[in-house]
Structures are given as structure tokens and as C-alpha cells.
């Protein structure tokens, strides 16, 4: 389960940002997780519940935006569906992932003095 180590990396980044702004609490953490990122949002939430104890994130809400996978032909840009062969039926070019591999820390809300 790599979600735990991802969450540790996320917490470090949030702590760094909070310290730079002398925040006294973190109220919200927004992340974007793509369907094909290899990250399971539910496991990320479980990891957050564990690692936030005793940190500035103790009372924070974790909001996970799930991003659906979107494929398109890299040649003619025709949209392609997951489950199809990932080579364009029209021009033969390989598909390119247009969205869905995000593992992003989007935004945080901090309480400052």
C-alpha cells in the first residue's frame, strides 16, 4: 500500500507551506487523483486519518477530486474510450492519455493568526 507513503509526502509539503505562513491550523486539503494514477482514494483517506493525528491537519477535511481517464488519438485527436484498443481505428496512431493520471496536491486552506 503506497498510499501511506504518498500521504507522508503530502503531509510534509502541507507542513512546509503552513510553517512558511505561520499557520495555526490547516482546515482543508484538496487533492486530485486520476483514475489511472494507481492511487486508491479510499486508502488515501484511511492513511490521512492515521497520519494527521497530532499535526496541524488534525481537524482538516481531505477533499479528493477524482479525475476520470480520458484517452484521445495522438494523431487525429479522436476521443477514445477505455476498454477499446488503444490504437486509433481511424489513423492507427497510439492513444494518449488526456486526463486521469493526476496525483496532485491542489489547494490548502490555512488558519493564520
Amino acid at each position: 500500500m503506497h498510499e501511506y507513503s504518498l500521504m507522508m509526502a503530502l503531509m510534509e509539503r502541507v507542513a512546509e507551506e503552513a510553517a512558511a505562513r505561520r499557520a495555526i491550523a490547516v482546515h482543508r486539503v484538496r487533492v486530485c487523483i486520476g483514475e489511472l494514477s494507481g492511487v486508491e482514494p479510499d486508502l488515501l483517506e484511511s492513511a490521512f486519518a492515521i497520519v494527521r493525528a497530532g499535526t496541524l491537519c488534525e481537524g482538516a477535511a481531505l477533499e479528493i477530486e477524482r479525475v476520470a481517464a480520458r484517452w484521445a488519438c495522438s494523431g487525429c485527436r479522436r476521443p477514445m474510450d477505455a476498454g477499446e484498443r488503444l490504437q486509433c481505428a481511424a489513423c492507427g496512431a497510439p492513444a494518449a492519455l488526456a486526463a486521469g493520471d493526476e496525483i496532485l496536491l491542489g489547494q490548502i486552506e490555512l488558519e493564520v493568526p
Partner: protein
Amino acid sequence: MCETCGCGDPHMVSVEIRERILSVNDRDAAHNREHFAAHGVLAINLMGSPGSGKTAMLEATARAFAGRFRVAAIAGDLATDRDAERLRSAGIPARAITTGSACHLDAAMVHHALHHASLQDARLLFIENVGNLVCPAVYDLGQAFNVVALAVTEGEDKPLKYPVMFRKADLVLVTKTDLLPHLDVRAEAIDEALGRVMPRPDLIHVSARNGDGLQRWFAWLEAQIGARGGPVPGHPASGHRHD
């Protein structure tokens, strides 16, 4: 004032970050790439399920290239250094990374091992990842290529069940093909499934046991090695030290 909802609370600030959560790993991976470039070594991240034949492929590769150029390896294993031992017996200088309970290698672990591994004169470095079709796909190690070993014994639908891993693969070695006559598995069905999860389905069917397909794999490696230059003297990453 709160910029998100306009609630007017003077003590709330909203900070846009829009950064990959793995940005630290990405940086470490870029650093490893500099090491590989400095040594003129082709680094391959070899992934696959436990028992998919990763170590057997490396043993066969080491035997084939023995006396022609040096192959080195870093092997990730949860609890033992058995894989590294097997590789050393096959003539590959190998360094074990025992990950404990970690299910994947990350760029920092590889970097640490690099400083203990001898890449001198090596043209090819295999990073044999922890046997797992999920987590290793998420971490960039600085490799030039991801190669995934998929044994025919794993069944026809493995690629569809683990699309993240196969999407990241530059090449899939469909291994243990000598077992096909004993299985209710069709090699074409595996290829078909890979075509649904890999935009560029580059596949080689191999058997380390009877040698089928191995020449194609060796030729693929040689082509990639040939496409890269040798070591770069005076490269910033040559012989640098870390605290």
C-alpha cells in the same frame, strides 16, 4: 480574507499549490537519471508479479552478454537478498535493497543503492523492482525504460486488471511461454488484452527455459544501448558525493 468561499474570515487563507504529491521522488529520479547519463548506463526498471520470471530473465540476459559488456543490477526484495544472490551467481554484480514492508522501490532507495553499487564500466543496469503489479508503477526511479514481465500462467486478463502498470510499460515480456501447452491460456488473448491498456503494445514472448524469443529481447536491449552514448567524462554527476 478567505479567497475560496468569500466568507470574510480574516484568518483563513487559501493557497493554490497544484504540485505533484511525488515531486520529491520526481526530483530524486531526475538526479538518478544524471547518474545514469554520467556513467553512460542504460537503466531499466523491471517490474512484474512475484514469480513472473524477472530474476530468470536477468540470469539469461547476463549469460548472453557475458564477456561483451558489463551488466549490473539492483534488486528490491521485501525480506531477503535471495534475488541479488541469484544474480551474483549468474555473474551480475548485484546490490540488494531490502524494503522491509515497503511494496515498491522509490527513487531515493535506488539512489542510496547506486552509491554502493559499482556502475563503473557497466552499460546496462537492471533495477529489479519488488514483485507487485500495483505500487511500483507509481514511482519514477530515473529509468530509461519500464519493462514488465508477465507470465502466461498469470492468465489472459491480468493486463485488464492492472491497467496502470501496463500503461507505464515500454515493453512487456510475456514469459514462460513453454508452459502454454499445459494451460487454458491463449497467447493471442494476452496480446489482445495488452493492446487495450498499452497505447504502444511492444511485446516479446519469451521462455527462459527453452530460450524461445530471448534473441529478440537481447536485440531490443542492444538497440537501446546502441542508441545511447558511453560515459560522459566530467559530467556533473560523475563521482559526486553526498552528505
